[in-house]
């Protein structure tokens, strides 16, 4: 009986005021729907396409669920844009956070290795390019590349920003007239950097350098660091950082 009364009010509402209430005897909108519950599991409104796939739902607790594009003022935005408020009276707008046509940089690899002995054994041969071992991997985004046998194997085409620092311990007090280098290999290209010698406490000697290379690589290309010294040396410290940009 109660339900019939509600229904009557609904119809009467439609006739008298041009306003329709569902579960409401006093609608204060053209269509006002009052929920039966206040939970996240029941829906107040559900709108489906003709295959019964849900396009929009409003749940009793206020959750709004939708399937397609969100189109303030008919603009669905573009990939990479965010919804930015335009204040209380205007529709929000989809906008890029980073400037037009620039490309966002992502950290995809960071690894380092530091030896702790004061006078380590000089285990690396002179006059030979040697890849230092990097086993402390702090970042490795596996969808972009794999770190295996001290090399980063590229899984995605793009621009790679590779920066390093390297410190070779030579233990010698000889004058700084020998040659030492660090080298970043990126695919088929290798970029050589000078590593300057300096004398530390206790008459020991290091060769240290740092640098960065930015270049475009393809799937399967490898990135690694290697070092060369005209005297025997051991690794004091190395770090390698790789950033990635999708084209």
């Amino acid at each position: 009986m109660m339900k019939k009364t509600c229904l009557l009010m609904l119809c009467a509402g439609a006739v008298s005021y041009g306003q329709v209430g569902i579960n409401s005897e006093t609608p204060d909108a053209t269509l006002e729907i009052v929920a039966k519950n206040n939970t996240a599991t029941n829906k107040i409104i559900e709108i489906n396409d003709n295959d019964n796939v849900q396009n929009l739902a409003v749940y009793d607790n206020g959750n709004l669920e939708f399937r397609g594009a969100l189109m303030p003022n008919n603009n669905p935005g573009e990939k990479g844009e965010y919804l930015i408020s335009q204040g209380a009276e205007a529709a929000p707008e989809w906008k890029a956070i980073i400037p037009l046509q620039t490309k966002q940089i992502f950290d995809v690899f960071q690894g380092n290795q530091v030896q702790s002995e004061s006078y380590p054994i000089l285990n690396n041969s002179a006059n030979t390019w040697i890849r230092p071992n990097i086993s402390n991997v702090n970042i490795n985004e596996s969808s972009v590349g794999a770190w295996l046998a001290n090399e980063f194997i590229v899984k995605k085409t793009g621009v790679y920003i590779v920066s390093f620092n390297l410190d070779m311990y030579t233990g010698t007090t000889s004058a700084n007239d020998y040659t030492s280098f660090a080298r970043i290999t990126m695919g088929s290209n290798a970029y050589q950097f000078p590593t300057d010698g300096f004398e530390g406490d206790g008459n020991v000697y290091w060769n240290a350098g740092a640098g960065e290379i930015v270049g475009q690589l393809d799937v399967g290309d490898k990135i690694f660091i290697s070092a060369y010294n005209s005297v025997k040396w051991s690794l004091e410290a190395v770090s390698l950082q790789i950033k990635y940009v999708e084209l």
Partner: protein
Amino acid sequence: MKKYITIFCAVIGQIIYSQVGIGTQNPSATLDVVSLGSTNETYGLKVNDRDSNTMMSIADNGNLYFKRSLIAGASAGVAGYVLGSEGSNNTPVWKEVLNSPLYRYVAIAYHVRNSNKINGLPANSNVIIDFGNSAVINSAVIGSWNETTKKYRLLESGIYDITASVTGQSSLASANRKAVMMIHLGGYSQVYKGTNSQGSSSDFMTTGKVSRYLTAGTEISVTVRVSNLSGSGTTWSQNNAILNINYSPKTN
């Protein structure tokens, strides 16, 4: 006639389930609308103002259109805020982008490589490097490359990381040849010592990076000076040159 049928369905739904179905006899919500199509040509719901302007609509492909502010909780945000998720069952929140991690980005604005060999470059003078015109990243709002002057002119003030690497070859080998690269930022020049390629009697390479706050209008260019070539009148060749310019906004 169609309207009457629709209302009739609604009435039946109201009686049986306390739920109203439009286009369905089995509503699963207080109001359940099953539409006639599945494309954005037809609509499951359309809300107009009195002048027949659409204020909100749901197209049958699921597109949700709305005319004005999106009020999350009780907040429509402030101009320039972005909508950030707070997870399931929580109201998303409009947030000030300038103080969010979103705005503390570094982006590549310009990336170019010139692999074409350029011969006959003079020794003992600062030779401006030609990075070519085939940039793979080139943001028109951050700056522009001038093919004639071989300078990159900034259109936007901000923090810039400039990385350049140039490899070259001397026409006459000399154990004492020296290459010095300079990255010029307006009137300031950052200098980098080059190195001879280990195991090669003729190749050398220079590479360097500089980070600085630069204002719009500043011009960026790179020069290389090769000296100590043996004999007089010797020249050198540019083999490979890469220029990369990263941009990030000033947030303090």
